[in-house]
Every structure is written in C-alpha cells, then in structure tokens.
C-alpha cells in the first residue's frame, strides 16, 4: 500500500511542478518544453510501478516497470536479433522500396491530368482500407522470411505517400506557373525547381504517416508466419507461453523504434522544409 500512496504523492507533486513550470516565464524555453512532458512520462511510470507493487498485481497480468527493465537488460541479444529482423530487414527495407515506388509513380502520373483525376480518388480510398489484412496473402506469396514482411510494408506505405505527393505536386498556384512560362522553362525545369520543393511539406506529411505504418505492417505480418525470430513472433508466442516480461520488453523496443524512426523523419523534415510557415519562428 505504501508504494501506491507514494506513487499518488509523486503524481500530485509532479503535476504541481508542471503547473508552475507551464505558467512560469520560462515556459517557452526548450528546457521547460522538454521537461514538462518528460516529468509527465516519469509520473506515468511511477504510477504504474506504484499500482503493481501496491496492489500486488500478478506479474503474469502486468509486471512492474522495474521487472521489465530487468528482463530488458538480461535479454538484449534476443531483443537485438528481433529488432534486426523486424525493424531493419522488414520495416525499413519495405519503407524505402514503398516510398521510392510511390514517389516515382506520383511523378509519372503527374504528367497526365487524366491519370491524376482517375488515380487520386482511388488512392485515397485504398489508403483508408485495412490493408493489414493482406498480410496472410503476401506471406503465402513471398514466404515466411523478411521479404513478405517488407512486401506488406510496401503496400501499406505506397498509397499514403502516393496521395500526399500527388497533392503536393498540384499545390503550386497559377502565378508561379505563369512565371515559369515567362522564362520559357521546360516541364523538367518547372518540376525540379518549383513543384518538387513546394511539394516537400506534403511529402513529409506522408512520410511521417508511413513510418508508423511500416512498423505496424512488419509486426502484423509476423503474426502470420515467421522464422523463429522477429518482434511480432516473440510477442505472439510470448503471450502464449506467459513470458510476459519479455513481451513487455519487446513492446518497449517497438515503442522506442517507432518513436526514433518518426523522430528521425521529423528532424529531416525540419531541415528540409525550414522555409514553411509552420516551421518558422515568425
């Protein structure tokens, strides 16, 4: 019980600290902007630990964060192996292939208004479908190993990137296109110097969505068949064999991988689209 009371006290204290910080005159500084959510996150973990220990929750149902951390430290080799299989081989390769394919398809369609008008609504529609469902079919086509996972990722990532890139390419206004006409610029000039840079904010929008989809696709595909490694494999078998600690450790790895991947793309976005109003300090 003491654990739980301590956790509650911590929560209240942390909330008070955050409230003070949020209303202080340093609230716009980078330090405070990171400190507040960080403190909030720490509070959640403390609460978790407090509830599990305070109420004696069985580790089979929900292990305490300290236990998970312990398992994490003990199983780094398994975790690394699974990470390599799922994230690097499955998700990352599928992401790269899917993004490149969608990007070049978008540029090809851009040439034809007819094709754009036909493919854009269809692309929007397909992007809303539960594409994860094709995982078993792709596993039957491409086999158990990472290639089928990459294939699922390619399909999941293709449509959001396609739709966003096509929309981005359409964004330039009439005046900009007129200016290019007065320079007697070729289609290629206009594409490379005007429309592609202008489309970047949209493209990155799609890329950020694609990072989350890539991880989802790779893990779900592993539920349908995998050699004896991979995060999805470990999670689904771990739940069955009640090694819940390991499952939570894998979930932690997945969370960190997903956040890092998204963060990387967001960082590149900030450098590539520094000029966009949403990133400027004005």
């Amino acid at each position: 019980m003491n654990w739980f009371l301590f956790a509650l006290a911590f929560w209240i204290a942390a909330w008070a600290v955050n409230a003070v910080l949020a209303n202080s005159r340093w609230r716009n500084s980078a330090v405070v902007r990171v400190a507040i959510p960080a403190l909030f996150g720490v509070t959640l973990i403390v609460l978790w630990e407090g509830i599990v220990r305070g109420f004696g929750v069985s580790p089979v149902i929900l292990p305490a964060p300290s236990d998970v951390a312990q398992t994490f430290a003990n199983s780094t080799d398994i975790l690394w192996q699974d990470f390599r299989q799922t994230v690097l081989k499955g998700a990352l390769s599928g992401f790269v292939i899917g993004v490149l394919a969608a990007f070049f398809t978008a540029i090809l369609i851009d040439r034809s208004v007819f094709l754009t008008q036909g493919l854009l609504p269809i692309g929007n529609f397909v992007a809303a479908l539960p594409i994860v469902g094709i995982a078993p079919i792709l596993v039957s086509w491409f086999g158990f190993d990472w290639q089928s996972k990459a294939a699922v990722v390619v399909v999941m990532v293709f449509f959001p990137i396609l739709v966003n890139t096509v929309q981005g390419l359409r964004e330039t206004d009439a005046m900009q296109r007129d200016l290019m006409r007065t320079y007697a610029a070729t289609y290629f000039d206009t594409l490379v110097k005007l429309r592609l840079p202008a489309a970047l904010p949209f493209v990155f929008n799609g890329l950020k969505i694609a990072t989350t989809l890539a991880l989802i696709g790779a893990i779900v595909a592993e539920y349908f068949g995998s050699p004896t490694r991979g995060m999805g494999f470990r999670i689904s078998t771990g739940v069955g064999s009640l090694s819940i600690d390991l499952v939570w450790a894998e979930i932690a790895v997945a969370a960190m991988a997903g956040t890092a991947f998204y963060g990387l793309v967001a960082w590149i976005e900030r450098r590539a689209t520094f000029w966009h109003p949403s990133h400027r300090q004005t």
Partner: protein
Amino acid sequence: MKNSLPILAVLAAIVAIWYAAVAPMNIRGALDVAERSGAEVVPPASVDRFEQPIWRLMIDNPGHVAQGYSLDRPRLPTPVQVGRELWKSTGEMALKGRAMSKRSLIYHGWITLQATLWGFALGTGLGMAGAIAIVYSRVVNMSLMPWAIISQTVPIVALAPMIIVLSSQVGIEGRTVPKAIISAYLCYFPVLVGMVKGLRSPGAAQLDLLRTYSASGLHVFLKLRLPASMPYLFTSLKIGIAAALVGTIVGELPTGAISGLGARILIGDQFGTPLAIWAALFAAAILAGGLVTFLDFAQRVTLRRMGMQA
C-alpha cells in the same frame, strides 16, 4: 458525370491487369491440378517444375494456362471468383434466411462493425475531451501533446495480444472490449489533432469581438470555437473511422479469434482457403467504404445546415 470517366478508366485498367496477372500467378497450381488428373505436363514431375521460371512453364504448357482461372485454391483468384465467394457468404445466405449464421460474412461484418463503432465512439470522445483540455489548459497542452504524438509512433499491434490477454485475465468476456480499446487507440489521435486545430482556428479578430460583448468562456466555446471546428472535426472523423476499423481487424488477427472479419482472414489462412481470405478482405473494404461515405454524407448535410458549405 465527366468526373467519373477517369476513375472508371483507371478501374477498368486495374481489372484488366488483374485478369492478366492471374495466369502467371496460378500456372504452378494449374499444372499441379493437371498432373494429378493425368494430363500431359512439361516437365512431368512437380519437383522439376519448381526450378523452372514461370514464363517457361507457360510457354511449354499453353493448354493448361486456362486452368489457372478456375482453381479451388488459387494463389491469385480472379475478380469473378472473389465476387462469387463474396456472394456465397453474404447475399446467397441472406436469401436463404441464414444471414447471421457463423459462416456468413454479414454476421462477421456485424461483429467487426460493433467493435469498430464502440472503439470509434470511445476514441472520438477521448479525442474531443483531450482537445478541449489541451486548448484550455496550458499544463495539459505542454505535458499531454508530446505524449499524444509519441503514442501514435508506438505500434499498437505490438500491444494488441497483450491487451487481449489482459482483458480476459481481468474477467472480461469475449473480445469486443479489447478490440474496442485498440480501435479507440488508433482513432483518438486524428480526432484529437483535428479538433485542436479546429478549436484554435478562429482568428484574433473574432475572439476580440466576443470580448467586446463580455462573452463568458462557455459562450466563446459554444458560439465560436465549436462551430468553427466542425469542418476540421469531420475530416478527422473520416480518418478516425477508417483507423478504428483497422484497429478492430488488428484485434481480430491474433490467434484465437473466432468471429469478425479479421478472424475470417485468420481462419482462411490457417485452413489454406485463400478465397475465404479474399472475400473477407473485400467485405472489410466495402465496410470501410460504407462507413467513410456515410460520414461524408453526414459532413455535407451538417455543414450545409450550418451554412459553411454550398
């Protein structure tokens, strides 16, 4: 009407490519069936055929290529095969009065729809409540928003089996609750982000006008912020319902699922009946299309009555 011509043309092209792809995808299966029925196949032993590339097999056995269009367990079914399977598990059963039998996709679609709608309601509610909290409290804004973003980068699919096990351990029957939780998880973030953008959309000039009326905070919310956020809300609702459907199906995919469209996909995979998988996928697609179209219609009606759209 002229807007649909490009779409129809592209759809026609997709169907044509699909039909053409069936032959090479199914040639191995077709030759296996032919071999078993005693017909002449080049090369005759299935082991040797494994090494041959597909185009070689097709050229050497032109008579058997057509067989690929009517296999029982095709690698790639034809559109007609999928349509027939879909009809068999939906319309045909409804006509026989067995719409809700355990083999009917209507029954399974209904199961999936239930969890989706619960998850959607939960996710939307949480998203809207979170949005209001974020817009009105600086502490909540600074502490919650970064975590909301991070939550989306965590692949919920990794948590799905855990959530299912936990809910059954806690004593909750069936899978509807865990599926609804997973759905809500995927759907609350688009609603949250859209609602925040919408609630913050009124400009300084409009807010100042209400201050000159000494309008209370509740008035500002009900008369300005909330109506202004409607277009943003509907856009994110459409994204949210699609995400909720994905969440439900993801919740139905881990082993042990027996009802719902995701479960049909799982069972189709386990029993090696690809046609069942394809039919379930198309049923899910139709369900997704229907839900988004319904929301689109609701959006149009609501915005028109509010005068926000012609």
